[in-house]
């Protein structure tokens, strides 16, 4: 099982405690306490997942998140003391896949990490969504997405989101259902996660994100795969 986790946190006690908990759950944690050295550490460690504290000395968490996302689709889970709209949404828009609000329980953290590292046996499956004349083609086993000639690079989370929608075209998914299927939440959670990542996904797969034809919004309900 994949299990290298880079913990980016300046609070040494918390980092050590995180290490204890993560090791106890079978992961291999690595640590960096400084935002400026986070990207280098990321390149050195090549983790399977990053636990990122948003409040860091030096380069702040949002910038670190953006820098990592610029070169990798590796799952990023933010640790934040603020559940305020702005901070969390900003982090999600910069590419974080999920977030945990301090103070969290160890079980909660481990559940979030597992959900992001969950590695379903890839099924040999080819899916198409979007308008028939210009579909988005998904090679599930090969983790590849194409539209026309162009290969689209998606993070694992965006890929999961797209596949979830594409497996049941024409079915409308509520945000709660998507949170459960893609993020692995078993109880109601923040639906902004879905909104932000649908936006990010659209920015990559849609010809015109303002008028989407692949991931369609169903007003008042949720989302479904195109064509409309």
């Amino acid at each position, binding site marked *: 099982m994949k299990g290298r986790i880079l913990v980016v946190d300046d609070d040494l*006690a*918390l980092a050590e*405690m995180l290490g204890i908990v993560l090791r*106890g759950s079978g992961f291999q944690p690595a640590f960096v306490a400084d935002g400026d050295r986070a990207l280098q550490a990321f390149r050195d460690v090549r983790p399977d997942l990053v636990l990122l504290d948003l409040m860091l000395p030096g380069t702040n968490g949002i910038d670190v998140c953006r820098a990592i996302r610029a070169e990798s689709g590796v799952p990023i889970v933010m640790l934040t*003391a603020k559940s*305020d709209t702005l901070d969390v949404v900003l982090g999600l828009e910069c590419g974080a896949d999920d977030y945990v609000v301090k*103070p*969290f329980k*160890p079980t909660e953290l481990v559940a979030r990490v597992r959900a992001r590292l969950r590695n379903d046996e890839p099924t040999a499956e080819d899916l198409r969504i979007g308008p028939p004349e210009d579909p988005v083609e998904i090679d599930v086993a090969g983790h590849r997405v194409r539209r026309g000639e162009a290969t689209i690079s998606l993070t694992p989370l965006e890929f999961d989101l797209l596949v979830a929608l594409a497996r049941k075209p024409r079915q409308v998914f509520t945000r709660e259902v998507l949170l459960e299927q893609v993020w692995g939440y078993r109880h109601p959670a923040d639906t902004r996660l879905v909104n932000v990542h649908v936006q990010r996904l659209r920015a990559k797969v849609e010809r015109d994100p303002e008028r989407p034809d692949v991931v369609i919004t169903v007003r008042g309900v949720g989302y479904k795969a195109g064509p409309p």
Partner: protein
Amino acid sequence: MRVPDIVGRLIRIPRLPGPRVALRLLTIPALRRRWRRSLSFRIVSTTLLVSVVVVAVLGVVLLDQVGRGLLDAKRKASLAEVAADVAVAQSQLNQTPAATPAELDPLLESLVNQLSIRGNGVYSVALLSTSDVGTGFDSGGVRQALPQRLRDVVVRQQAEASTYVHLDSAPPSAPGVAGGGPTEALVVGAPLAARTTSATYELYLLFPLRAEEQTLGLVRRTLALGGAALVGLLALISFLVTRQVVRPVRQAAQVATRLAAGRLQERMAVHGQDDLARLATSFNEMARGLQRQISELEELSRVQRRFTADVSHELRTPLTTVRMAADLLHEARADFTAEVARSSELLVGELDRFEALLGDLLEISRYDARAAVLEVEPTDVAGLLRSECAYATRLAGDRGSILSTSGIPEEPVLAEVDGRRVSRIVRNLLSNAVEHGEGAQIEISLAADEESVALRVRDHGVGLRPGEAGLVFGRFWRADPSRARRTGGTGLGLSIALEDARLHGGWLQAWGEPGRGACFRLVLPRVAGGPLHGSPLPLQPADAETPADDAGHQPTPPGSAATVPPPGRGVVEAGR
């Protein structure tokens, strides 16, 4: 003429409204409004009114004086003329040798002609016989104008007399010169006697007052024109003077308005060192003082809010470590001795409370910072209420309370609300009911009408003492400080619930009586931001409408708080 030109130009200096605007400005309500609202309008119009009265009175008096003076002079001159003429006539009559009236006639006629020539158009002459009524000589129009009264006086008293008469047309002032229009005239009469015939005659001189009238007319016109110009000038002067005073006052009013609107950096311009400059200076000092105090207060409250938020945030990181360590210990408690295992249980339990308190503190500080944002979407309030009740049933079971949800309708009740906040309100009301419900049944009901949805949580616990219905929403307020806390409420739950209700524009109210339990009612508009006029559910439950024997407390009709509210607060409600 030059004067009106100057006046005209002076009047045109201020911008005069166009004719149509002027008409509109002259309607009675418009004038009344201006009178109330404009100091300069009031001063100018008062000046105008008073000066018109003063000038009119002055003009009348002046005109009267001038007229009197003119007439007096004319009269004196006339009487002198008459005296001279009488002397001439009497001396000629005395010297005549004629013995009969008929012989006298040529003399009389020549006398009239002679005197008329002497009069040179200033007066006309008539010589009338007293005894032989109807005979006499007239140089023109005197006899027709002659009032009988005057003749009577002259004849009876044999003395000089005079009176004023009105002439429909003036006699020709000189032979060959046409007479003028109607005019006033002075008639003077004097008796004459012929020595030889002992006949008596009367000599009458008619002085038309045309010249005097013309003079008086000129004076009147001059006075009128001068008066009008004076009034206009006075109005203009008062306008200019008041403008000097009113402008700074208006400016002060404007600046004060802007200050009141929150633009604290607004100041008045200070010119010179006069009283108005002093007004501006003290005004500015006041504004500066206000600005300083307000910004100090703002800064203080900002620092305090910031501090609360920072403390809550800063506590979170160490709390996370403690939490994880405690959970780790708790999970391994089977390996510990009984005391250590129990300690770890207590640790985890208290950490839960600590976390809840911290979360509530942060939430309250967000409300205090006005950073709370309502995120509404159509929500099934009935479903939400049922699921919260299901969650609370477990908690209530520990205390022996039973949640009765029969008052929640089966069908969905949709309303535009922030589901997260409404859930939190319900959670707080339920945990409050469980904590104070003494293990008795707790009834939850929901009802909706066109514009509002109301939910009510009723417990049968200790209830509220009079006055407490307003206090329950206070931060960290406890009915009885000595009572043990069992469910571990933070003491902020109802405060947050009240803020949540207020954010929705809804009401959150409490009712309670000692020994009869308490009832909390939440009323929310069904449409976000919609009006709220009433509630589909009364605040006071139906079973509590009979008087309470134990408390001796008089209940009030349903729909109002049965508790005696603290002064000035009434039923404690959020929102409108």
